[in-house]
């Protein structure tokens, strides 16, 4: 029976999503829970599962459309229509847990081709060893076979390319069609078949690579991905609405460097993670946020909302663009615990597997631009938060000390962008001083747990 597919509600703060890519087309048979469309919210990209088994009959929301939660995005002919149970079927629980999948491209799959009769395992039959199979019995091994099988006709030696660099001289029909469909030149594809022949799998791999990490070509207008558009909209809104102001201090990282060196191998051995400077910066920042609640708040039309919980978002270069996984109640966690949680979410971000849960509820953002070699930055605030802190590269510099001697010290700039509606220079400086002192108090002996 005809049945409308709605955009599922995925989280309290999420009101709309952009249709990124339809995985199914009208006329396709769909299985219940099978992903049918990729959508992107301002928090996360995800796949929407089919609410029922049947045939997709019409797509209502086109790729690129922004759609409100609960709006009809497609119609299907369901075999067993879930009686008004759609929202429950595709409810928040299932969807929130849905990991972000890489953009789907057609790949050779071990799944059964649909519509074919598949024999049950028992129906296939098994061979009885030593069975008397005929008048005189028969052995089940091939004594005649030499090293080479007999030549099997058209795939013979003369037809394959000689690996002389012209490996794409002869394209199979499937390859030719795929190249046309995806507008790829044969020269762009690395052939792995006999003599460097381009196989169907090679083209599909090239398509996947292009879609996951492409460089814009000069002069070509490239349609941004939905993730890219979300980032653009989010950044523009922040700059449009928030009067940014900036402040920075430099921090002597001698103690942190010593502490990290002292613990690095033990942490690697015991927990399997590489101890970086980020968990130190996060621990100190979280404490400073607790002591400076204005930094951990949001400007709203009706007032300034203090968040209470210190949930720090960490900016990470994910597989599909910027992602900001959140470490919850970071002020209550020791450095080691933060290091473990950071390793987990960073890994998930790089694999594109962050859930909506992982990226929701942030109250402040920490951006470790120093890992990329930056020494100063004026970050854009993660709207609607009140401030963002960048930790810059640690650079060895001659430093004039209090007793007028000069020493080489590992120095790091920390740069704060803050919402001047909420925070003035005095509060910003107080916060920065707290972070600075917190980092400078760390010594080789500081406990991580």
């Amino acid at each position: 029976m005809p049945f409308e597919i709605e955009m599922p509600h995925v989280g309290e703060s999420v009101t709309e999503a952009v249709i990124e890519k339809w995985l199914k087309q009208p006329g396709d048979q769909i299985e219940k829970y099978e992903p049918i469309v990729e959508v992107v919210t301002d928090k996360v990209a995800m796949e929407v599962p089919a609410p029922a088994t049947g045939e997709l009959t019409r797509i209502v929301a086109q790729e690129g459309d922004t759609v409100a939660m609960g709006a009809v995005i497609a119609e299907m002919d369901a075999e067993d229509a879930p009686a008004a149970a759609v929202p429950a079927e595709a409810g928040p629980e299932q969807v929130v847990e849905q990991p972000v999948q890489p953009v789907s491209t057609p790949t050779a799959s071990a799944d059964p081709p649909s519509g074919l009769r598949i024999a049950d395992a028992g129906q296939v039959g098994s061979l009885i060893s030593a069975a008397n199979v005929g008048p005189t019995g028969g052995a089940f091994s091939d004594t005649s076979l030499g090293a080479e099988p007999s030549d099997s006709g058209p795939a013979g030696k003369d037809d394959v390319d000689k690996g002389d660099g012209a490996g794409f001289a002869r394209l199979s029909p499937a390859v030719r069609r795929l190249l046309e469909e995806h507008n790829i030149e044969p020269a762009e594809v690395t052939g792995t078949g006999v003599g460097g022949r381009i196989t169907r799998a090679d083209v599909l791999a090239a398509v996947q690579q292009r879609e996951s990490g492409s460089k814009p070509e000069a002069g070509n207008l490239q349609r941004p991905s939905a993730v890219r558009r979300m980032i653009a909209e989010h950044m523009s809104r922040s700059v449009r609405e928030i009067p940014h102001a900036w402040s920075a201090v430099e921090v002597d990282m001698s103690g942190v460097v010593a502490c990290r060196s002292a613990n690095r191998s033990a942490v690697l051995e015991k927990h399997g993670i590489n101890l970086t400077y980020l968990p130190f910066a996060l621990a100190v920042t979280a404490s400073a946020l607790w002591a400076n609640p204005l930094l951990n708040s949001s400007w709203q039309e009706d007032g300034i909302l203090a968040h209470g919980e210190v949930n720090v978002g960490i900016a990470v270069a994910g597989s599909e663009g910027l992602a900001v996984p959140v470490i919850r109640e970071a002020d209550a966690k020791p450095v080691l615990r933060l290091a473990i949680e950071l390793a987990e979410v960073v890994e998930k971000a790089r694999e594109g597997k962050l859930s909506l849960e992982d990226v929701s509820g942030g109250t402040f953002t920490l951006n470790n631009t120093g890992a990329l070699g930056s020494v100063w930055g004026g970050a854009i605030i993660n709207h609607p938060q009140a401030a963002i802190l960048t930790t810059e590269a640690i650079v060895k510099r001659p430093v004039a000390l209090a007793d007028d001697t000069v020493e080489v010290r590992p120095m790091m700039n920390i740069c704060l962008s803050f919402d001047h509606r909420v925070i003035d220079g005095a509060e910003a400086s107080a916060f920065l001083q707290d972070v600075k002192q917190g980092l400078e108090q760390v010594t080789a002996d500081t406990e991580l747990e």
Partner: protein
Amino acid sequence: MSQKTVIKAVRDAMLSEMRRDPDVFIMGEDIAHRGGVFLATDGFVGEFGEERVIDTPLAESSIAGIALGAAVNGKRPIAEIQFADFVWPAINQIVGETARVRYGTNGRKSAPLTVRVPYGGGVRGGLYHSQSIEVLFAHTPGLKVVAPATPYDAQGLLVSAIRDDDPVVFLEHKKTYRLVRGEVPDGDYSEPIGVADVKRQGGDITVITYGLMLHYVLQAAQALSEQDRVEALVMDLRTLRPLDRQSIAQAARHTGKVLLVQEDTPAVSVLSEVSAIIAEEAFYDLDAPVMRVGPPELPPMPFSPVQEAAFMPSPEKILAAMRKLAAT
């Protein structure tokens, strides 16, 4: 479910159909008092009597001709040809007459006749007990030709063949009789004629075959998976006429690389037709030329064990071809 061999499945199909329908009767050489050379009808004469389990002279033309006469007059005969190698005298009755009954009577008559034909080699049967003769029947419009490879398919398809209102040539590979065991549902069940099925799933290459070769292909596919991590989809045709064009095309499209494996000599064979179907239906999805494994073009299966092994496709030969296709 019970586990049984192919010969037991064939026997049980006939037994249940004879009990169900009094018009079903069996005729053939040595099938009554000897129970058939493969013992497919052992004990039948005791239960059904000599009027329904009939020993015939060594005259295949008569067996097919009498069965045809009974069929057009309302009976459902099962004619057993002792070995496929002996079917030639019956060709005129089967191809020249039986296949044309429906057309020749403008649809007024049909011939609900099943011709059981044990065929195939690899059993040291030599020149007169080893041949693959399927293509002669598969080429003939008006006939249905079934070639099961497993107990499940043998029983379910033989039931369908006996109940079919048109003539069915039912090919039983001798070597599978006591070599292959598998599950068969208890009670009344049948499998539709004309549907190929997937006996193994895989996404890298497609292998299409039938009969004994199915089991060699499955062995090779297992080795290919374990040794090379290449997964073969294995399709069993089960019915050779009418061929399941749609399933064949779909299996070919699934991987774009197709290997055809047959025990019959390849030139102008059933799998030649399968290759044509693939070219017609799946050309734009092909990623490699269709490859074939089959015996050399010799008139008979040789008798010498060494030569017989050289003639027959084996799991090893099939595996080598699978590797070549996967690497193409």
